[in-house]
């Protein structure tokens, strides 16, 4: 299989416009004859479903929560980037494009990223028109801040709730289309399989989470906007229900999975406090603007009250190692360094499983410098949240933080049109692999989700529909649907019949520990090989010893979780395999074998300047690797340095 990204050639600045002009259009009176299935109502899915509905297509939208408004996009705090240059500080489409390609450590497609930077400005216009209450200046115009170490202030925000406000904007547009009758919404409905007929995505199988009923849905195109797979690590900043099921099932039906090993670890999260921990909470990265990160110089001081430790016994390790960027080094660098000092035994805070995994983020000096009230004005809500969760007061003693899984750059492979290698299967938002390469910049996921949903997918889906035409004879009675539904039912019955001794979560935790140890912040050949041995063992025990109580009738949350965990238990293996195959370090993927003399990530552009896209060959059979070479015409490849 040769992977064709279908990027338009010619000057990058006009590529998207020219591409759009070459697209086919569907006559307005014919649009309602097409059925589009949109799975997911986060930023990407809600935006896409609403826009297709406005155009007059017939849309069915699905989400597993009880309301479309609860998709995990709601939890994004920091903000959304756009190249508006409202601050007159030298920003431009080209600069945002350049920063994103470089930030992704040169592992993304230039043309996709350029389009994203171009569209970023339209997103802000759209959101403001919907009534998204972004922060404003006293003059009434929109405010911006600098985020994640960017040298320009291009981030738009709504206090610490930007994701919530943008999602509610997209949800309102979606609700308007539900009212208009163009979109039908199916909440508490989980997609369990994709149906591919004659090489085209033609529908999905879902389970109604309120009744247990399995249903078949026929469509002319299928859109997956089902979010990221960070929960393969069990503990992450993702919502509890985030899963890989939809994209993984598509992978099993032939869609290629690209760069699964590219995951992002966020350096400032509240550390694990005990074995019962169910998820991790992010503390905004803006805290590093004023907080100083340190651990005791000596492991013997790890349990001492931090305020009693004099200056000369503290190791401000980021300031020491990276004098020019200090505490503001990028996410991956900050995270890895925290792990290193904790592995040296200098971690602080509670001991969990025999290790202290936390470092201090100290505001003492900042409070002395600018006063408590200024710090309160800047971070009051975050300090409040920290106090609620830990019971400690960060104005008086330093916060304790530790990295956690936060975002997944990998996802289903898509071309420039956001279509996977399966005809008619479009993949949007965090679920695809497209724009962030090996590392995502802060405030760029919201931008990508909305760019995909509002502006990229609607025209490319229309073009696809215009080309395939309407009036297909496929119905839910087709063999393809019957077989997929039968398989889904069989799997549910199997899960319910095992009645073993272990609860579902115990397997998820066990898998998560393996993933975090071997495929987390730093990875080695030996570690990954161990994980590749261990995961099939956990999976085998799962299928013999899991206990899923109840039946497939009505609400059964154990069954929901069991299905998701079963998919993670297969997917984890694919991630480790991808991480093993990529013997270089790049972005969030750090292979210990590939580092510079002073311990920084070392890319290998000669052997790995490609996207790795995996083709399913069977659960117990190794998948086939396809490579899409990456070429750079506008950005010069350099090694990142933050010294």
């Amino acid at each position, binding site marked *: 299989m040769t992977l064709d990204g279908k990027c338009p050639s010619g000057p990058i600045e006009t590529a998207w416009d020219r591409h759009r002009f070459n697209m086919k259009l569907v006559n307005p009176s014919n649009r309602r004859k097409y059925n589009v299935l949109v799975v997911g109502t986060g930023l990407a899915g809600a935006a896409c479903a609403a826009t297709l509905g406005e155009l007059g297509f017939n849309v069915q939208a699905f989400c597993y929560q009880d309301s479309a*408004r*609860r998709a995990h996009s709601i939890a994004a705090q920091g903000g959304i980037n756009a190249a508006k240059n409202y601050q007159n500080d030298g920003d431009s489409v080209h600069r945002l494009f350049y920063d994103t390609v470089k930030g992704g450590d040169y592992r993304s497609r230039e043309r996709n990223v350029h389009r994203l930077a171009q569209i970023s400005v339209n997103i802000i216009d759209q959101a403001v028109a919907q*009534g998204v209450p972004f922060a404003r200046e006293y003059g009434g115009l929109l405010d911006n801040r600098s985020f994640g170490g960017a040298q320009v202030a291009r981030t738009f925000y709504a206090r610490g709730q930007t994701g919530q406000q943008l999602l509610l904007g997209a949800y309102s547009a979606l609700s308007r289309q539900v009212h208009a009758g163009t979109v039908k919404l199916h909440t508490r409905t989980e997609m369990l399989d994709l149906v591919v007929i004659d090489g085209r995505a033609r529908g999905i199988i879902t389970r109604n989470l309120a009744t247990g009923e399995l249903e078949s849905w026929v469509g002319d195109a299928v859109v997956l906007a089902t979010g990221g797979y960070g929960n393969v690590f069990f503990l992450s900043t993702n*919502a509890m229900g985030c899963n890989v099921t939809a994209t993984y099932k598509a992978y099993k039906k032939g869609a290629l999975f690209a760069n699964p090993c590219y995951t992002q670890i966020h350096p400032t999260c509240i550390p694990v406090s005990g074995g019962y921990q169910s998820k991790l909470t992010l503390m905004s990265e803006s805290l590093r603007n004023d907080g100083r990160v340190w651990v005791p110089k000596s492991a013997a001081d790890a349990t001492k009250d931090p305020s009693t430790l004099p200056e000369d016994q503290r190791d401000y390790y980021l300031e020491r190692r990276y004098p020019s960027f200090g505490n503001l080094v990028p996410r991956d660098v900050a995270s890895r360094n925290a792990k290193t000092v904790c592995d040296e035994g200098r971690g602080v805070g509670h001991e969990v499983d025999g290790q202290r995994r936390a470092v201090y983020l100290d505001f003492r000096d900042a409070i002395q410098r600018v006063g408590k009230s200024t710090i309160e004005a800047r971070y009051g809500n975050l300090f409040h949240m920290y106090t609620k969760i830990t019971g400690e007061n960060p104005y008086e003693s330093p916060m304790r933080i530790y990295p956690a899984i936060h975002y997944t750059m990998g996802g289903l492979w898509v071309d420039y049109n956001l279509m996977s290698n399966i005809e008619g299967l479009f993949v949007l938002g965090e679920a695809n692999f497209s724009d962030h390469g090996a590392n995502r910049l802060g405030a760029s996921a919201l931008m990508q989700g909305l760019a995909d949903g509002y502006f990229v997918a609607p025209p490319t889906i229309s073009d696809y529909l215009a080309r395939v035409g309407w009036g297909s004879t496929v119905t839910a009675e087709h063999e393809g649907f019957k077989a997929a539904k039968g398989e889904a039912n069989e799997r549910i019955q199997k899960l319910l019949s095992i009645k073993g001794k272990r609860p579902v*979560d115990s397997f998820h935790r066990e898998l998560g520990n393996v993933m975090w140890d071997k495929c987390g912040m730093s990875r080695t050949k030996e570690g990954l090989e161990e994980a590749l041995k261990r995961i099939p063992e956990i999976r085998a025990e799962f299928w013999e010893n899991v206990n899923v109580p109840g039946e497939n009738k009505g*609400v059964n949350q154990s069954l929901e979780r069991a299905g998701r965990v079963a998919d993670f238990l297969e997917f984890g293996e694919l991630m480790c395999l991808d991480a093993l195959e990529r013997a270089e370090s790049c972005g969030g993927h750090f292979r210990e074998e590939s580092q510079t003399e002073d311990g920084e990530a070392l890319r290998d552009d000669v052997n790995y300047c490609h996207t790795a896209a995996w083709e399913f060959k069977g659960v117990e059979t190794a998948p086939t690797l396809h490579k899409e070479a990456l070429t750079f015409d506008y950005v010069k490849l350099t090694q990142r340095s933050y010294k």
Partner: protein
Amino acid sequence: MKITLNVWRQSSPEAAGSFVKYDVDGVSADMSMLEMLDVLNDRLESKGEAPIAFDHDCREGICGSCGFMINGVAHGPEKEITVCQTHMRSFKDGDELTLEPWRAMAFPVMRDLMVDRSAFDRIIQAGGYVSVRTGSAPEANATPVMKEHADMAFEAAACIGCGACVAACPNAAAMLFTSAKVSHLGLLPQGEPERDKRAIDMVAQMDKEGFGHCSNHGECEAVCPKGISVNFIARMNRDLLKATLRSSR
């Protein structure tokens, strides 16, 4: 510590429910309320018993999925916080807690602590939006908005749609929820053209869903995890009155 729970168990929307008592040992103060239920559920699952069903997702107090009554108070004893963010340090060893689903005609119980809140979605569908097609938006800074208005609109827009306001209201009214959306959009110039129609249509839908009427108890504001003010209800009532007068003219 040891906590005793009286949990509402109801196996289906049609089934009659009842309280069931559980003793949970080894509860740590650092656990969240939902993590304590996870621990209990793990035990139930290992024994092949049905775990306690409750809605939850983000566990960060923002998605609005979670929510139930703890000892008769929506989202429990702490102010401006959801159950997912309530930690067990709010309670002490030996405490007995009663956990019950939201009770409202418009929120039928589905199972245990889980209710059907789709009525909220239908209220938004009736008019909780600005009619602006993708691509038709003007340049964002072409319409300045007074900072005070933008900030107040944000306060209203912060609603997470959890339903605690309805659960706490003696009349099971949805006024705080509906007024928050009506006010959010009504305070912004972008929402102005549809302001009258929005208020009329959303309130009509609210009534149709079987929510009760507001009699100014203020219980809704007291339990709202986002601290949304009852002043928005007064604001919506004014909007509605004006809109009704104008439309009857």
